[in-house]
């Protein structure tokens, strides 16, 4: 009996979605085209300032600037259609589409200027570092294109999107407070205020862990926006996105990443405090108490941290960093360094369990959150806290970042192992797919939200940031 009902319902729902999707696909294509046009216009603006439109025109074998602009806008609009179709099934909110736009732009940087453009022009395709460094301005432009297209897409859809809501005054205030506080610590008060207010626009009702990753990506985008774009435009009226310029400003990148992450965490926690203090409806306050299974989750976190720490150990041994870590407790022995390293790995594992509990629904999401978390801790731990604790000066310059690259590899490996192992452990103890209809329903909704949200885009973008680092700081062989 139940089965038949289920099938009928399923068929009905499926029919409805098919219809909805067919209609939506056309709308999405149109909205995408318009969004692509907007993004293209922004990108074209920067190309004009840099005098690069002639290069684009070379696709149609002229060096006419107007022709270049036309070609550029056509390509941008066509790519926009693809973007619209791709994210039409994602949750169309500013916070989500911006991230999808960013990786869409980055993806086309790899595929366009680095691969297809040389092929079309009959030049050799070169994926080497030197050409990537030469194309860095183009990457920035592509990121700008993606971000603007993502925002424009939402603006175009907001009338029809039930999920869209303008940020309330309280949310902006939260962002401002968080931004000012973190900005003061990092010495970027004005940028903090602006970034904080902006975060209210892209924030999503989520727990601290995902917010942290969102903030990390957001912070990097702000580095590109503020340090590489607005400041030179304001103060020197030039727009230099070259590798040399980016390397000069590399010392600001960790600061902006930490700023973004800090704003996200602060914003989320302020929201939690406000919820606890001012919400009188318990249904809105919490769905589940932390105790009981939470304690077990902590144990799993410690265990996963141990696993990740062992993977990281390989890198540490090869690079010989244990004595440096040992300095944190005033020792120089590698054994002490190993112990400190494993203890930190466990503590981070526990914090991962607190932040990302029940957020990894499959291995992909486990690895995704883990990688992102690993990247964050490279910025905060390796680049910032380790020098502070060992009494060395904090070196965020390009050279310092380059020196920390092996550790970045280790952190990424650590994060991936941590996330994967934690997911396996949690899967054992927290079988959300089992009976108990309510649990299943809740989890499915959360999962769908996550997949339709920007989580995968944020993981990929975090990894992308990690990959951009050799471009920024590396010297071509």
């Amino acid at each position: 009996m139940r089965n038949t009902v289920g099938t009928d319902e399923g068929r009905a729902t499926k029919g409805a979605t098919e219809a909805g999707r067919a209609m939506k696909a056309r709308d999405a294509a149109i909205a995408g085209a318009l969004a692509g046009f907007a993004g293209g216009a922004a990108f074209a603006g920067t190309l004009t300032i840099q005098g690069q439109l002639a290069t684009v025109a070379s696709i149609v074998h002229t060096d006419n600037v107007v022709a270049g602009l036309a070609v550029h806008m056509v390509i941008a609009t066509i790519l926009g259609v693809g973007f619209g179709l791709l994210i039409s099934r994602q949750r169309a909110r500013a916070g989500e589409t911006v991230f999808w736009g960013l990786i869409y732009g980055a993806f086309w940087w790899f595929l366009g200027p680095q691969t297809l453009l040389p092929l079309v022009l009959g030049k050799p395709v070169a994926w080497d570092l030197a050409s990537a460094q030469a194309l860095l301005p183009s990457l920035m432009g592509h990121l700008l294109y993606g971000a603007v297209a993502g925002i424009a897409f939402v603006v175009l859809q907001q009338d029809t999107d039930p999920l869209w809501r303008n940020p309330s005054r309280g949310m902006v205030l939260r962002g401002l407070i968080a931004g000012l506080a973190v900005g003061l610590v990092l010495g970027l008060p004005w940028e903090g205020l602006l970034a904080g207010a902006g975060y209210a626009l892209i924030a999503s009702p989520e727990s601290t862990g995902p917010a942290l990753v969102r903030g990390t990506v957001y912070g990097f985008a702000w580095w590109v926006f503020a340090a590489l774009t607005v400041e030179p435009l304001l103060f020197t009226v030039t727009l230099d996105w070259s590798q040399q310029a980016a390397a000069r400003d590399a010392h600001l990148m960790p600061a902006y990443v930490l700023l973004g992450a800090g704003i996200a965490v602060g914003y989320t926690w302020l929201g939690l405090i406000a919820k606890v203090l001012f919400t009188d409806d318990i249904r809105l306050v919490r769905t589940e108490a932390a105790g009981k299974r939470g304690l077990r989750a902590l144990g799993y976190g410690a265990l996963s941290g141990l696993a990740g720490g062992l993977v990281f150990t390989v890198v540490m041994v090869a690079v010989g960093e244990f004595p440096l870590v040992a300095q944190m407790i005033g020792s120089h022995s590698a054994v002490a360094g190993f112990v400190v390293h494993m203890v930190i790995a466990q503590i981070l594992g526990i914090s991962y369990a607190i932040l990302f509990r029940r957020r990894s629904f499959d291995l992909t999401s486990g690895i995704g959150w883990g990688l992102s978390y690993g990247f964050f801790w490279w910025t905060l731990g390796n680049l910032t806290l380790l020098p502070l604790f060992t009494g060395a000066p904090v070196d965020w310059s390009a050279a310092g970042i380059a020196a920390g690259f092996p550790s970045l590899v280790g952190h990424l490996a650590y994060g991936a192992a941590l996330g994967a192992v934690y997911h396996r452990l949690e899967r054992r103890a927290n079988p959300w797919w089992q009976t108990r209809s309510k649990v299943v329903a809740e989890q499915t909704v959360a999962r769908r939200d996550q997949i339709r949200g920007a989580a995968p885009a944020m993981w990929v973008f975090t990894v992308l940031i990690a990959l951009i680092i050799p471009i920024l700081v590396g010297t071509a062989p």
Partner: protein
Amino acid sequence: MEQLGWGAVAGLAAALPVGVLMATQHMASAQEMSPAGWLAFAAYAVVVGLVLIAVARGSRQGLAMTASAGVLLGTLGWLVFSLTLEPLFHGQLPTWSAAAAAKTYPELVGNVLHGALTGLLLHFVAGVWTLKLREKRDPVERARIVVVGGGFAGVAAAQRFERLVLRGAKLDVTLVSDSNFLLFTPMLAEVASGALEPAHISAPIRSAAAHTTFHHGRVDRVDPAGREVVLESGETLPYDHLVLAVGSVPHTFDLPGIAEHSFPLKNLADAVALRNHALRLLEAADRETDPRTRRELLTFVVAGAGFAGTEMIAELFDLVHGVSHYYPGVQPSEPRFVLVHAGDRILPELGPELAAYAMERLAARGIEHRLNLRVTEAAEDLVRLDNDELIPTRTFVWTAGNKPTPLLGSLTTDTSLRVEGFEHVWAVGDCARIPTVDGGFHPPTAQHALRQGVTVADNVAAFVAGRAPVEFRFRTIGVLVALGHRTAAAEIRGRRFAGLVAWLLWRGIYLSKLPGVEKKIRVLFDWTLDLVFPRDIVVTAAAPRRSKVRVR
């Protein structure tokens, strides 16, 4: 298997354009262009394809998700292969430096592109595959298991079933119980004496067995022929296998007055009622002038000197003397405690030496005992023993007899816990007579019930899967009995403990066995507060209408 094959195919297919591009655009070294180099690249592609399909197995995650997974895997692949394995292969230690990353940058781009392409392909391949699978697959038949009883055995069985379902057993488990919590009976006496809060020694079944369907209700009857359980509400639950863990009820042997005038000690309500009753008696005794009534009010009799009875009399002693300073009208010498036992020594489960020790400890406090005697009759204000001794008392606790909860008659099982005479019915815990392999019967204790619950779940799952059930084998690990304030006796694996050491053992072991971290912490708090504050004398329930305390 077929799915993994598709993963490999997708990995290889994606590798083709990437490899060709890299080869034709002079981005690969001569060594990489050799057959061995191509082979290595193909192997890498297959591995990425396999891992990706394993990660994205079964579910259609959506294009964005699978492609993202591909990019992430491509990056990890670059870290593992280009940055780590390749230097190792060439006999160098990997450095993971920025310079090394710069050198292998083309491979990074290739790997990321390859990952994304593999993800794209897999999305469509996996989509087709899932559709095909859906047509082929019939809805899974799950064996319906009904567990009756929410005590140690029932909940242990349900938890074990959950574990088995996780491992792939096709079971649908329902637990029926008339209380919605698992009562930790070893601490019941402490609740009766007010040392612990009632809710702190009980764990909600819904949280202890979170993935089992729970029915709060009383079972009216079981129909083994029709294979269904009928609840008192009229609801019926059909089953393929029935696990009975219904526990026991007090057995009064139809002696006159005992059922009406005794306090049982089986559940939380009994314990709370006993505590309230004792405190009410103290209140009454405080202003009572008639010596005979005072004697009735201040005499406490416990029949049965097993674990429950012995711990109860010791706890009652602690309660009364612990709060007597609140009652200036009650002289410390007045309260009288009597333990009646039919055997020739108390605590038959314990060795004779420890039993003697326990008796000596109790006697030293002035707790009287009547050995080789039975209670033959009870009235509102007295208890008669079979030597015709009359003990005037208003508090008579009965722990001298238990019988299985009557549901299917007497439940005798075979050694693998199947009830004799019934098909597909299993029984565990206090309600069942479970033979040991050497011919005796397992005692009705919590440690046995817990293990029986686990074994019965394994056996039912084995039976459903067509395998043979195993015999239940378990030897008592040890016994512990608390004898009141800072004293206990214990025998663990043949080693004997007494006094403070045994008391600490008792608390430590039972605390660790208490289900749920939250309750452990709460009980620990209760115990800690008990060290610095006197026991509470709040009477939490109104006097029952037919009170044993006569109101003048």
